[in-house]
């Protein structure tokens, strides 16, 4: 256990160092992402100035939701930015390097890239929670816990989508861009949707666990919803690993053949 944690720590430290190898550019990205998140929220601020109620939600609730999504996505990109490259690695055979090591290939694959703007996302979250979301410092530990769990769910969804390329290589572009779908749905309140869509967002495409449920858990001080988000992180995380392992059996290491007619 100690050695495994040391290994993960070494991977993280190396990739963060690589992410900040050009410190000027990295800090620029980080600051811009922070500003981007805050500027984007102006749209919501303008909306709530005119319509103060969105089916029971106010500006502070949306700020919470936006902050949780920013922290979750930022964490996923800063720690496991390689998740966006999995489909490409499967398709072009660069997974070989990770498979040639005496470890499970997923940690080194996911942590093969650290995206500095992710840290900008993470830093913008407390501003959204504490300033615009009307929360106090006492709420911070729970918000970080829920956002971390949300980050694991988000990373699992993106990983599962990327793994589709093991079976259907033609889906490469779709799998590569699927993370954008996850972000777009996550940053909007989902309680406005009908029961059917909400059910999909709680099961097949579990984006509800990324943003909606964590906000509800905080708003309603509902311990069951907190546990549900943590359980979702464990379950979808495990599911993503199982799907990746199953997919490895179909890995063709860049030798996949397509015959043109």
């Amino acid at each position, binding site marked *: 256990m100690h050695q495994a944690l040391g*290994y993960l720590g070494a991977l993280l430290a190396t990739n963060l*160092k690589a992410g900040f190898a050009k410190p000027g550019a990295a800090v620029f990205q980080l600051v811009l992402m922070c500003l981007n998140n805050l500027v984007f929220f102006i749209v919501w601020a303008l909306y709530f100035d005119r319509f103060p109620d969105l089916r029971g939600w106010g500006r502070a609730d949306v700020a919470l939701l936006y902050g949780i999504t920013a922290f979750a996505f930022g964490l996923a990109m800063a720690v496991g930015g390689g998740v966006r490259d999995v489909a490409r690695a499967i398709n072009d055979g660069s997974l070989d390097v990770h498979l040639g090591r005496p470890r*499970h290939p997923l940690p080194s694959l996911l942590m093969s890239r650290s995206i500095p703007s992710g840290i900008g996302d993470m830093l913008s979250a407390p501003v959204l929670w504490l300033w615009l979301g009307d929360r106090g410092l006492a709420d911070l530990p729970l918000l970080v816990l829920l956002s971390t769990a949300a980050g694991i769910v988000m990373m699992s969804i993106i990983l599962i989508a990327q793994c589709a390329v093991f079976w259907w290589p033609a889906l490469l572009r779709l799998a590569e861009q699927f993370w954008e779908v996850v972000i777009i749905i996550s940053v909007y309140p989902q309680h406005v949707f009908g029961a059917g869509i909400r059910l999909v967002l709680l099961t097949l495409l579990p984006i509800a666990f990324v943003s909606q449920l964590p906000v509800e858990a905080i708003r309603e001080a509902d311990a069951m919803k907190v546990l549900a988000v943590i359980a979702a992180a464990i379950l979808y995380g495990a599911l993503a690993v199982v799907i990746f392992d199953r997919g490895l059996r179909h890995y063709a290491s860049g030798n996949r053949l397509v015959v043109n*007619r």
Partner: protein
Amino acid sequence: MSSEAILVENLAKSFCARRALGFAGMFKKRPVTEVAAVRGISFAIRPGERVAFIGPNGAGKSTTLKMLTGILTPSSGHARVAGFVPWEERQKLARRIGILFGQRSQLWYHLPVSDSLRLIARIYGLERHPAETRLARLAKTLAIEDLLERPVSQLSLGQRLRCEIAAALMHAPPILLLDEPTIGLDVSAKASLRDHLIELSAEEGTTILLTSHDTGDIERICERALVIDQGLLLLDQPLAALRAQHLRHRVVTLMTEEESPALDLPGVVVATREPHRTSFAVDLDRIPVERVIATALERFAVKDLAIENPPLDDVIRAIYQSAAARAA
């Protein structure tokens, strides 16, 4: 448990190829055909041997190498590498083999080389002190001491490949599998890399199996060759025997006072000619090379002479031609 470093029996691998039907056919079921990349090959490699895996593009070299590392699972057959079944015990095997894919990097592009090598040592679970000792030794042998603190992005291809080899050898594996190790290198970088590999193999008794299109790699590094084509093993021989059996000629080059000497001997033809320097191709089935030399010394004022084996390229071409002729 086998005493061979690598043992392969009837190893085969097929891939499913789906026919692309384009936009119009996107909802149709695409026909699947099976393409055999490797068709039941067998060989054994003893510890410490340096073996070349030769073949044209698509012959099945890389696929075989990937099965031997556990990256690919074979369709049928059996293999043991360092005593492990690669595709069943991939992680255990990884501690006993070093892998270098010439076109893929283990190093972090923006970081100093030493950072990558230290992380790789952690990946293999090496303690700090043995890792530093190993790093220092490899740096000396591979002449990368001055490169360790430079980012990989600032290295030439030859320098990077030497660092990649250090990465593959950090955990002191007894078996080294190299896929196109000198691809893209210039002549001097190739020569330097080959020298380093030979030195390492001699010092540590490392078994080497390499694939390459460059016959120079094979001639310089290896003592035995496996020739593969269309997934079938055509030949498995020591390099010397390969030459002796498949190309029965030598090249005799004379540097003479005479501008263009001529040798009217049976089985001797001029291969290349420059003023005062003439190369003759000698057919050993028709005339012994000693007689050609003796005649040349008798007739001309010879300042220097050289007897060369034919390039391995010619040997391999001859093997493919004879295999094709047998198939026809």
